[in-house]
């Protein structure tokens, strides 16, 4: 069965430090991959997505992610974290519909990011 694993439940980094959030997926084909961010009590905001092509994708708010097929990973990175980045981050994979379009999303359990001043 398809699944998404985010091994880190909670990460704390200092403001200005670099960040990497890990995501591993289990899926039989090349997946559509996403990172969403959720602030407390809010919905999900799309940070970036990977469908095909260049394996390093750029997103909003200075985030990037790299797709590594050999490792079944899609890790999220940011070179310098800001206090406003404190939130929960979710990695997701979209199942494929017949015809190759993306279907519903399967999410990981999330990684909560805290930022120290």
């Amino acid at each position, binding site marked *: 069965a398809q699944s998404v694993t985010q091994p880190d439940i909670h990460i704390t980094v200092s403001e200005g430090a670099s960040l990497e959030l890990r995501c591993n997926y289990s899926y039989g084909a090349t997946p559509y991959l996403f990172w969403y961010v959720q602030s407390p009590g809010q*919905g999900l905001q799309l940070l970036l997505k990977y469908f095909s092509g260049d394996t390093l994708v750029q997103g909003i708010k200075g985030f990037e992610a790299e797709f590594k097929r050999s490792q079944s990973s899609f890790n999220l990175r940011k070179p310098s974290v800001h206090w406003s980045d404190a939130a929960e981050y979710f990695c997701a994979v979209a199942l494929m519909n017949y015809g190759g379009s993306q279907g*519903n*999303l399967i999410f990981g359990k999330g990684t909560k990011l805290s930022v120290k001043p």
Partner: protein
Amino acid sequence: DAGVTQSPTHLIKTRGQQVTLRCSPKSGHDTVSWYQQALGQGPQFIFQYYEEEERQRGNFPDRFSGHQFPNYSSELNVNALLLGDSALYLCASSHPGGTQYFGPGTRLTVL
């Protein structure tokens, strides 16, 4: 350009009651998906509506049902509420097979 909107924001119900949650999709989107997010968990797919029909369904009991209207807005209905139904319910809209954009959610508390 309005994004995805959901109502109400918060809701408190008691066990056994029925609840209806509402979602208006982003302008230009005609597909609506519903997700349940329990505390401390990632969202779980409930079902997806397109052309007023349920197209896909996740592993949720028949107590969870939905509807899509001709203007593409959607409702999620939950009957015979259980304590375990307490969660944030998220609506997402998209073009068919396209990237999903989420609303702010409805927080349901079942007492």
